[in-house]
């Protein structure tokens, strides 16, 4: 099923993801060129959300592989269920001939599917999210590259498993490590920036039930102003939503109404001690004066 750009835009919005136009083009292109999409951007701009929304758009399953340092093929691809295999060997000891046992324990029954294998064995192509690829080792990246170009996996005991369907692959990176050129070239690229005030206000409206439009606009402007301050960790969209929910829950209708509450709830946005010290009451008041 291939959707055109407008349809993707609409369905993304219906799935609760307010995307910019360019992202919709990139998502459409992914289908057309059958290439993975590499998303980069600051932490908290909603990279992972894109994959979730994409799965909703196409009405398929989302399979997620969270990368970490030391992630190996056994955790990402497949693993034999050793405990069961050992049991099977012991149970059949002396009763069956060795070849039968061997064939038996190296059959699919004893194979544990990990995300990558799962992703190529679905009948309807799922969305495969490879999250924070920059945290995995370079060796794993090279292996992944091979998988992404052939979409087949060879298991020595079982033979080659070809993809039943080609999954839509979304990779995200936070830039903790430089990715290889080969991987970058293999992928389409999209850089997600913090949303502009207008889009963030729409996101708040969409995701926070019962909040009024004026307050959403104020919050979006306030967060945008905070992001312009020289902070160590800038608040992401998730933080904005937390803050909006908190303020709505406290019954705030206008940011100017109660500067004290505003400052006290700032912990939803500011998450390091140093930044907290920098965002004094005076700074909050100054920013509030500018945006509200």
């Amino acid at each position, binding site marked *: 099923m291939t959707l055109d750009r407008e349809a993707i835009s609409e369905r993304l919005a219906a799935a609760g993801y307010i995307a910019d136009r*360019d992202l919709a083009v990139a998502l459409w292109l992914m289908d057309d060129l059958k290439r993975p999409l590499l998303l980069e951007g600051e932490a908290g701009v909603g990279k992972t959300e894109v994959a979730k929304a994409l799965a909703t758009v196409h009405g398929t399953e989302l399979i997620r592989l969270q990368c970490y340092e030391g992630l190996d093929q056994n955790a990402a691809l497949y693993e034999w269920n050793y405990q069961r295999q050992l049991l099977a060997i012991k149970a059949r000891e002396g009763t069956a001939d060795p070849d039968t046992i061997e064939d038996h324990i190296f059959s699919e029954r004893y194979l544990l599917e990990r995300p990558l294998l799962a992703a190529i064995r679905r009948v309807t192509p799922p969305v495969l999210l490879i999250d924070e690829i920059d945290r995995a080792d370079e060796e794993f990246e090279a292996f992944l590259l091979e998988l992404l170009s052939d979409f087949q996996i060879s298991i020595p005991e079982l033979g080659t498993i070809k993809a039943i369907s080609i999954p839509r692959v979304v990779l995200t990176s936070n830039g903790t490590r430089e990715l290889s050129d080969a991987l970058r070239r293999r992928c389409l*690229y999209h850089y997600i920036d913090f949303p502009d005030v207008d889009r963030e206000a729409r996101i708040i409206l969409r995701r926070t039930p019962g909040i009024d439009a004026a307050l959403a606009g104020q919050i979006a402007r306030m967060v945008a102003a905070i992001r312009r301050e020289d902070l160590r960790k800038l608040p992401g969209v998730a933080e904005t939503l937390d803050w909006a929910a908190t303020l709505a829950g406290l019954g705030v209708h206008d940011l100017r109404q109660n500067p004290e509450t505003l400052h006290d709830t700032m912990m939803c946005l500011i998450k390091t001690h140093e930044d907290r010290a920098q965002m004094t009451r005076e700074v909050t008041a100054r920013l509030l004066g500018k945006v509200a």
Partner: protein
Amino acid sequence: MTAAAHHSEPGSIGEAMRKRLAGFARTLRDNGFRIGIRETQDALRLLALPLAARPASLKPALRALFCATHSDWDKFDGIFDAYWTGHPGRIKTTISGAPNKSRTPFQQLMESASASAPSGLPDHPERREAELQSESGKGRLQGASRFDTLASTDLRHITDPKDMEAAHALANRLARVMRARLVRRERTSRSGRRLDLRRTIHRSISHGGTPFDLAWRKRKVRQLRLVVLLDASGSMNLYTAFFVRFLHGVVDAFREAEAFVFHTRLAHVSASMRDRDVARAVDRLSLMAQGIGGGTKIGESLATFNRWHARRVIHSRTAIIIVSDGYDTGDPALLGSEMKRLRRLCRRIVWLNPLIGWKDYSPQARGMQAALPYIDLFAPAHNLDSLAALEPYLAKI
């Protein structure tokens, strides 16, 4: 999109358009984009689609296809507009990498330092000779007596072009030797943590299926990453050419290394330094040409590093090596606070100061004073021996 549009051949668009697209790909390549034939082919397919008729969708589509990094992403719009909407004046081709240009101050600097011609090409006779000598018996560094004396001579006093070239080659090789030793040390210090069932069962085959011989999984030790920040200001003039060669050796030999050069501003030069050919690597440094030999703003350069590069290039096992004489024309307070910030981010900070090798030197420069509390190792770097002495220290990190 219809199925027909999907399988449209590149041939369905005009010859003129194809040429224009090839030109665009070339322009992007000139600007540092890495674009292969596949990308161009995919772009041709895109152009044949109905979507291409609308520039509003064509631009983001080509951008997603051609960009591979954030810096590509930032540059793309300008280049696209300039190329397709016809304001060629706005095309900004980068200075680095272009072959025949006028000599930049940096190249001149390198030339004046190593007067005679093709410095350190991979198979330069001088180096080959040195390597041959080093193979015969002793350690590579202590190869021959001529190099022995060279290694301990203050770099300021090496004037003979031949000696200079040898010193440069030695610095380059020193960096490689350091790598070999550091890596070897890592392999022996591993220890098992978890049972490796896969391997255990494989080994049990020889015992008739009973797992006597257990295999363990070891935690992979992260390779030490070196991040070198080299001061290329006027006061470092006598040493810069030499350290650039050392830098090249480090970046080329360590898979995990990043290089930065700074004077009044900071530039990330790893990509240029990764060029195997030293002379070409130095050519590509020409981006840094402006301001070489001028003042130094260490504090501001560090601030740039902390803000834009630190998160990406520093991991849990990173040593920062700052090569500078500490003469700062900027604000020492800023240098202090940025050093403090940097200290929190990385494992070790090594400050190499060529002046320490001078007689009666004490770190009086205000910048140096401000930075001292945050430095783990404050070491001389006026000759090759002092650089070699670094290796045991780095191996322990």
